[in-house]
């Protein structure tokens, strides 16, 4: 018992999650350890965290998991002190991994499916920022066939091709009212596709120490034939025709460098530093197929900056079957002052997590984690002039089932 408390005490002051609309929920073991994982290879989720380390796994492995994200945000309008809140539905980022290879083969093959980016936020009806946004939902699913090769007992390399598919749905009110005082509405809905890769190097110089380097490329998600619909007073309808639109959303590259160390056999401490190339998200452009004097293409400056995250986590083998984990991470927001908007009210913040794992037998393992984040930010958006304070609480329970054979 004492040991468990020691682990938590060590970990709690410094431990680290969503950043921009990046979703770092690709493995329960890693989530329990503050998101660390590039240097600590335990199961088939290595296909995501470090394809270079997957070749070090001895068995075939399949795993599925889900992490419901429950978030609740509030906004206090700076001038009027009016408080608005979100009624966002839960989102369900999932993972599915399968890793295969002949026993003792240096070459392993795998397929990963996961949700690396996404966001859903829905503000209450009639809220003060509704002309900037009422609802946004971004979903992405990446499918990644992967090859991992163990060069020797110390080095492993791996890479996977990423096919990304996604959806976007954005709604806002239009500040034109009909005679009953009802304002107009706009809805943009589209499907997106993109391509990229995920590569990694794993280095394990001793049985106690390992290093990992993971590079996940930018995936530019392109919407080709999105549909835009506008509900406006009848006399203005001709100026707001239903039209196709094109847009693109560059999902940034991520580089992770990590280390894992086992001072004693039962304990592993892991640390990851990540750089996320959010600078690519410079402008959000909607190019409408049909333009009218009242419906011009829109260019919204986002001006995101490259950002970093630091993650620290620990895992302790309480018994040969039971693991406990804890972690903390610090995430720096990619959003500069003047660009915070109600679609992603992000801020620098700390994320805390706990996790457990239980091995039922030599094949079957269940892992669970719980992550908590809270963030607050006051800003005046340069484009909408929306000024005020956002505060968001996020709760993420998660569970996965792993089967090794």
């Amino acid at each position, binding site marked *: 018992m004492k040991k468990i408390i020691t682990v938590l005490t060590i970990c709690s002051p410094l431990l680290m999650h969503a950043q921009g609309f990046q979703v770092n929920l690709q493995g329960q073991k890693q989530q329990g350890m503050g998101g660390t994982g590039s240097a600590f290879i335990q199961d088939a989720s290595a296909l995501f965290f470090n394809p270079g380390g997957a070749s070090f796994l001895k068995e075939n492995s399949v795993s599925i998991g889900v992490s419901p994200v429950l978030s609740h945000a509030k906004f206090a309008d700076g001038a009027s002190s009016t408080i608005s809140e979100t009624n966002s539905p839960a989102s369900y980022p999932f993972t599915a991994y399968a890793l295969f290879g002949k026993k003792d083969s240096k070459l392993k093959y795998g397929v990963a499916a996961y949700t690396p980016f996404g966001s859903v936020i829905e503000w209450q009806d009639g809220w003060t920022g509704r*002309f900037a946004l009422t609802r946004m939902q971004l979903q992405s699913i990446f499918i990644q066939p992967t090859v991992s090769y163990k060069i020797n007992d110390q080095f492993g390399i791996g890479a996977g091709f990423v096919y990304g598919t996604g959806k976007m749905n954005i709604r806002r009110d239009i500040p*034109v009212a009909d005679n009953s005082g009802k304002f107009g509405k706009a809805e943009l809905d589209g499907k997106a596709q993109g391509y990229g890769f995920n590569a990694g190097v794993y280095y394990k110089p001793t049985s106690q120490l390992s290093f990992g380097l993971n590079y996940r490329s930018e995936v530019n998600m392109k919407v080709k034939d999105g549909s835009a619909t506008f509900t406006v007073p009848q006399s203005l309808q001709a100026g707001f025709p239903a039209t196709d639109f094109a847009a693109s959303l560059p999902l940034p590259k991520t580089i992770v460098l990590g280390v894992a160390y086992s001072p004693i056999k039962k304990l592993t401490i892991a640390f990851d530093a990540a750089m996320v190339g959010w600078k690519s998200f410079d402008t959000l452009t909607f190019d409408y197929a049909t333009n009218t004097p009242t419906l011009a293409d829109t260019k919204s400056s986002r001006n995101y900056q490259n950002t970093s995250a630091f993650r620290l986590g620990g895992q302790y083998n309480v018994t040969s*079957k039971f693991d406990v984990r804890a972690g903390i991470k610090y995430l720096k927001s990619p959003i500069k002052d003047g660009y915070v908007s109600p679609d992603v009210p992000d801020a620098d913040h700390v994320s805390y997590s706990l996790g457990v794992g239980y091995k039922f037998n030599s094949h079957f393992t269940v892992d669970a*984690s*719980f992550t908590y984040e809270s963030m607050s930010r006051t800003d005046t958006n340069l484009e909408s002039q929306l000024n005020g304070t956002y505060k968001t609480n996020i709760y993420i329970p998660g569970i996965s089932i792993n089967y090794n054979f």
Partner: protein
Amino acid sequence: MELTRLISTSLEFLSTITFNPIAVKKILFNSFLASSVAVALFSCRPTIDTPAPTKGSLDVSKYVAIGSTISAGYADNALYHDGQENSYPNMLAKQFKLIGGGDFKQPLVDASSVGIGAAMNARLVLGPVTDCSGATSLAPIALGKEGDFTIFLTSVAANGPFNNMSVPGAKATTTVYPGYGNPANGAGNFNPFFTRMTADPATASVLSDAASQVPTFFTMSVGTDDVYGYAISGGTKDVITPSAGAPGFGFDASIDAIAGTLAANAKGAIANIPEISSLPYFTTVPYNALVLDNANATALSAAYQPLGITFHEGPNAFIIEDANAPGGMRQIHDNELILLSIPQDSIKCMGWGSMKPIPNQYVLTETEITAVNTAITAYNTKLKATAEAMHLAFVDMNAFLKNVKKGIVYNGVSVSASFVQGGAFSLDGIHLTPLGNALLANEFIKSINSAYGSTIPKIDATMYKGVSFP
């Protein structure tokens, strides 16, 4: 706090673990459930503290607004119910309730009424209008052939006294005028908008009705109508109130009388007067909207050859009446204004501005504009000096509307002085929409907070609409 609880609960949870594999299995199965329970237990909702409204040195228990057309809630060229509900004094009163403000009564007209304007007209709405050439477009049209005269014939004085003592058409000079509501004075010498709201039409002045309520706080936006009657009519009606003269005759002394009376026992805010160049009524119709093809330009040049006026292909300056010009007409200069009141069909099909000069009442010439601007500058100097001398809050409505003209963005809403689309000005091009009034009320709140150390929250102006579209 929530985090501390989360961790301590988790520790308790872990401390229950006995290393019995069966129990461990159970615990593990329960752990996912436990996380979900934890979510339910710790409130999901963040809390945000907002500053509490405080009154500083203010007492707003009895707020009276003295003013004229804009503060009466006159909009879309008429006084009507929804316009009154959205007057900025009424919006201010709602915010004042947060710091101890009382009820705010207005001389409301019936909600079903088409209202009545200065020309006995009904209020304007947007509707499809087919012009002389057969083209249909969205344009302001009166909601009826004439205004609702019952408004003038029905006294609402029994519902008073009214906190909103703003009377459409009232000037600084007429605000202090006893018997301003007395029909016995004869047409043009009394104001029927005041007659309907005063308990004593024969002897009361707007000021005496305001003062007798013993306000603890007042707003004063007086003076616009001292110059706008002249400006709106293209200089053909009314006279600009001179600065000098006794109360009731000169602007300065009238302002002193009004502010002096009200400020004797109350704190307050004084607003200044917008310049005409900020208002779409004066800026919507371009001086050179006479677009000609080559043949018409040649023909017109020939016709106007005796006056030495030539036309060319493309945009040309309109021809206007000018008694001092040769032949009584000339081309309008680029610094002169054509007013929104000009009948569009007369330009499009009747040859106004080309074959015939545009009548004087639809044009402000350079001389007239100078007279208007000189008066507004003098009035604004006086109003600011009065606010300073009496330690009252000063609201720079002129600067606010200049900013609107440049274009402002408020919580994702673009607001400008552009006619109809701009959202700030109602269909008469002079008075404000509900959105415009809300933004103006916020200017008052800003100045009041700054002058009296109060922290009255501003209005969430996104709750108010601009021009309504069918």
